[in-house]
C-alpha cells in the first residue's frame, strides 16, 4: 500500500460531499434534473474513490459482499413492492394513481415516484459497488 498523504486527505474531504451530491441528485428526480440511476452511480463513485485512496481491505471492513447484495435486492424490492401495492389497492401494476385514490392523500403520486427513485438509487449503487468488489479482488496483492 503506497502511503500518499495528499490523496488520502483530499479523498477524506471529498467523499462526504460526493455522497451528499448523490443524495441530492436522487431526491431531485421528480422535480428537476436527476434520478435514481444517475445518483446511484455518483454514490458508487464515492466508494470507488475510497477504494482507490484507502485500499480494498479498509473499505471491505465497512461493507462486505453479502451486505451489498442485500442492498441491491432491497432496492429492487422497494420498486416492485410499490408496484404490487398498487395491485393490492385495485389498480394495475405500478399504477400510482390507484394508491393515491385508495389512501386519499394528495400529491402522493410524486412522493411514490421519489420512493421508487430511492429504490433504484440503492439498487444501482449496490450493483456498481458489487461489480467493483468482485473485479478488483481482495487488494492483498496490489495497492
Amino acid at each position, binding site marked *: 500500500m503506497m502511503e500518499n498523504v495528499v490523496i488520502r486527505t483530499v479523498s477524506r474531504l471529498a467523499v462526504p460531499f460526493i455522497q451528499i451530491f448523490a443524495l441530492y441528485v436522487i431526491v431531485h*428526480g*421528480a422535480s428537476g434534473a436527476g434520478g435514481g440511476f444517475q445518483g446511484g452511480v455518483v454514490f458508487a463513485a464515492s466508494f470507488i474513490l475510497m477504494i482507490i485512496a484507502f485500499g480494498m481491505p479498509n473499505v471491505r471492513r465497512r461493507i462486505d459482499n453479502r451486505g451489498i447484495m442485500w442492498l441491491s435486492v432491497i432496492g429492487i424490492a422497494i420498486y416492485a413492492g410499490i408496484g404490487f401495492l398498487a395491485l393490492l389497492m385495485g389498480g394495475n401494476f405500478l399504477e400510482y394513481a390507484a394508491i393515491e385514490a385508495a389512501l386519499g392523500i394528495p400529491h402522493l403520486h*410524486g412522493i411514490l415516484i421519489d420512493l421508487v427513485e430511492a429504490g433504484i438509487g440503492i*439498487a444501482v449503487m*449496490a*450493483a456498481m459497488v458489487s461489480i467493483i468488489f468482485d473485479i478488483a479482488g481482495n487488494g492483498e496483492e496490489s495497492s
Partner: protein
Amino acid sequence: MKRKLSIIITILMIGMLGVIVSGLTFGDPVDHPMDRYFIENSQEESGANNVVTAVLFDYRGFDTLGEAAVLFTAALGASLIFRKRRDD
C-alpha cells in the same frame, strides 16, 4: 506488408463510414402527437415536474423496473464469474 494493407483497409473503412454518416439527416425528428401529449399532460397525470422522470418512472415504469433488474443481473453475473471462493 500485411500491416500496411490492414492500415489502408482501416482508413478506407473509416472514409466509407464518414461518407455514409454525412449523408444522413440528424436533428430533424418527425413531429408526433404523442410528444405534445406528454409535455402537456405529464405534470397533472404523474405529479412529477420533470417530464423525463414522468415518462421514465410512470408511463414506462415497467420498462424501468426491467432495467433495474438487468443491472442487478449484471452484478450477479460478475459475482458468479469473478468472486474468489474460499475452497479453491
